């Protein structure tokens, strides 16, 4: 039987053998009672874990597919809203590129979604049922409704540009009514397409996503509006791009404000948005979005080149936001700290509440107030 441990400093814990005196005094510090107390080798750190391994299984989505989809879906949805506004205020030069952009973006996002499936050949299983508890099911149905509308709106716009007395022009005129209906439909479904991706991410156990569920839809909506504004600025003639510039400024403001509030509200989990890859992406997003919105607002009316540059910056900023949010989530799932510490704080706060309720002691209340509780409804 093993009786000792061999260390670099020699053998320790050798068995005293027959030297042990029966009835000798207990070693000092040894507690009475059996197995009581919580003595540990190291003082309690902020959190404990199983060899530092994550509690959650890791997100299996590829960032280019899913973060790319978040960006493209947002761009498409917000573009459809702006396109409808442009159509009804006589700005075909703005409506056209936005409709085309929406169609390309939604096509790309569906392709990214199918590509990310483990079994792409079964993608139609997404439409097996309607399931409100699954944002992905809701989203599949939204895409199934929105995609054809965006396509019809873009196709009718193209047909409407055909000129002359021939059959083609007649087709364009015939399609004007249905085209307008599709434009309105896409504008009504567009915001849902741009927004539902927030619950899609937040309805998981990933701390950096779930804890941000109140602000995330506003971050996404702002980011989507900024991207659509950027697309409009980059693609439309300066004289018609007024709504795009306004959307860029409004969207950028909303996105930056909501993201800041989200990070603050999240407590320690918010640091995943400030550090590492996610931190770099979020900082790049802030810089690009701010620069794009300001350039667009100040110079976008005068200079075509400035408008194009601002538009590109806004599109890149929106993409950075989505990739940043994605990577903050994966970082928070990979470190057990972000899973364990907030849950432990929640338990401790509940215990303190219970103790305070039972004993009526003010000390218990003060202790509970000091513990940051990440979930208001806990």
């Amino acid at each position, binding site marked *: 039987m093993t*009786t000792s441990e061999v260390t670099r400093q020699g053998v320790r*814990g050798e*068995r005293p053998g027959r030297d*042990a005196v029966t*009835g*000798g005094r*207990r*070693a*000092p510090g040894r507690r009475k*009672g*059996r*197995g*009581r107390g919580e*003595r*540990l*080798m190291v003082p309690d750190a902020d*959190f*404990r874990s*199983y*060899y530092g*391994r994550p509690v*959650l*299984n890791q*997100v*299996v*989505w590829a960032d280019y597919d899913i973060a790319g989809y978040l960006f493209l879906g947002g761009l498409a*949805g917000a573009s459809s*809203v702006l396109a409808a506004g442009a159509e*009804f205020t006589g700005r075909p030069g703005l409506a056209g590129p936005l409709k085309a952009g929406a169609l390309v973006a939604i096509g790309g996002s569906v392709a990214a979604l199918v590509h*990310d499936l*483990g*079994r792409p050949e*079964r993608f139609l299983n*997404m439409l097996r*049922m*309607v*399931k*409100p*508890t699954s944002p*992905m*099911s809701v989203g599949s149905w939204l895409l199934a409704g929105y995609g054809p509308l965006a396509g019809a709106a873009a196709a009718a716009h193209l047909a409407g540009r055909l000129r002359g007395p021939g059959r083609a022009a007649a087709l364009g005129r015939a399609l004007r009514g249905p085209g307008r209906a599709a434009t309105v439909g896409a504008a*009504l479904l567009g*915001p849902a397409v*741009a927004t539902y991706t*927030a*619950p899609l991410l937040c*309805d*998981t*156990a990933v701390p950096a*996503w779930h804890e941000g569920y109140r602000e995330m*839809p506003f971050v996404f909506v702002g980011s989507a*509006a900024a991207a659509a504004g950027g697309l409009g600025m980059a693609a439309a003639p300066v004289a018609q791009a*007024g*709504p*795009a510039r306004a959307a860029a400024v409004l969207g950028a403001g909303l996105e930056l404000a909501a993201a800041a509030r989200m990070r603050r509200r999240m407590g320690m989990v918010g640091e995943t948005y400030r550090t590492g890859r996610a931190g770099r992406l979020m900082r790049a997003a802030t810089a690009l979005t701010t620069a794009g919105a300001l350039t667009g607002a100040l110079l976008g009316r005068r200079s075509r080149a400035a408008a194009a540059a601002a538009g590109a910056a806004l599109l890149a900023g929106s993409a950075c936001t989505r990739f940043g949010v994605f990577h903050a989530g994966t970082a928070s799932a990979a470190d057990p700290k972000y*899973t*364990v510490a907030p849950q*432990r704080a929640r338990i401790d706060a509940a215990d303190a509440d219970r103790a305070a309720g039972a004993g009526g002691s003010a000390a218990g209340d003060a202790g509970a107030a000091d513990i940051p509780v990440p*979930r208001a*409804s806990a």
Partner: protein
Amino acid sequence: MAVDSRGTADAAPQHGSGEQRPRMGFFTDTSVCIGCKACEVACKEWNAVPEDGLDFTGMSYDNTTGLGADTWRHVAFIEQRRPLGAQETGAGRAPVDLGMPAVGRPGDDPDPATLGDFRWLMSSDVCKHCTHAACLDVCPTGALFRTEFGTVVVQEDVCNGCGYCVPACPYGVIDKREDDGRVWKCTLCYDRIGDGLEPACAKACPTDSIQFGELDELRGRAAARVERLHGEGVSSARLYGADPDDGVGGAGAFFLLLDEPEVYGLPPDPVVTTRDLPDMWKHAGLAALTLLAGGVAATILGRTR
């Protein structure tokens, strides 16, 4: 296409066949687990689960590391310099270091107060078969479903590998199999229990650390066991997942642990993510209206500029 009108398929007997079966589950009593891993092997054998990596981790005797697509039972090993309750002889002599594997760095002087204290925590982890199962709630295809035994099972012929259930699980149980594209997890041996057999892991467990049975009965048994352990001086014994009022509505597979759950790699206070989903939709709806209103505002503002 079917509309899931219940919204959430919680574990109450409410199934198409109309057959009312008692809810079945596991009670894993880790105080008698000896870390033999027979459960891991039996599970792999019965369910034909492929190899899950042959790594050396240095994590005590655990080279399995955690639950995943190809690991449906996982035995955790934790070495602690703490006395297991009732381990002390009470003979009144100075504690003697038995030279058991140390947790400190080599050369560290052992604290005389804890000299000789050693316990080995072993626990066989498994899918919790939650009452409110996030994986099942978020599955867009209906591949995950609630069986007549109240368990949660993946239909591998329906799963399209979207991977949504993976980050939804608060315990890190379900995962995607790399070469296959679909998700896999414990079925509570759906094929066996339908035939009146115990699940493979419970059948193979030599110490009855894994107990299979009707959940209500298991909960009663577990409560009695904790009381008994407390009486014997094992004050660290506690139940995990047995409370029907916890964040997942109680687990169908629950545990008797000897330390805090996070020490075993379990979340201390898991909450089914879909609990907040109605609130999420509310916020998302507001945001969508904001975008619509913002689009109108931008169109109007854009005129004057």
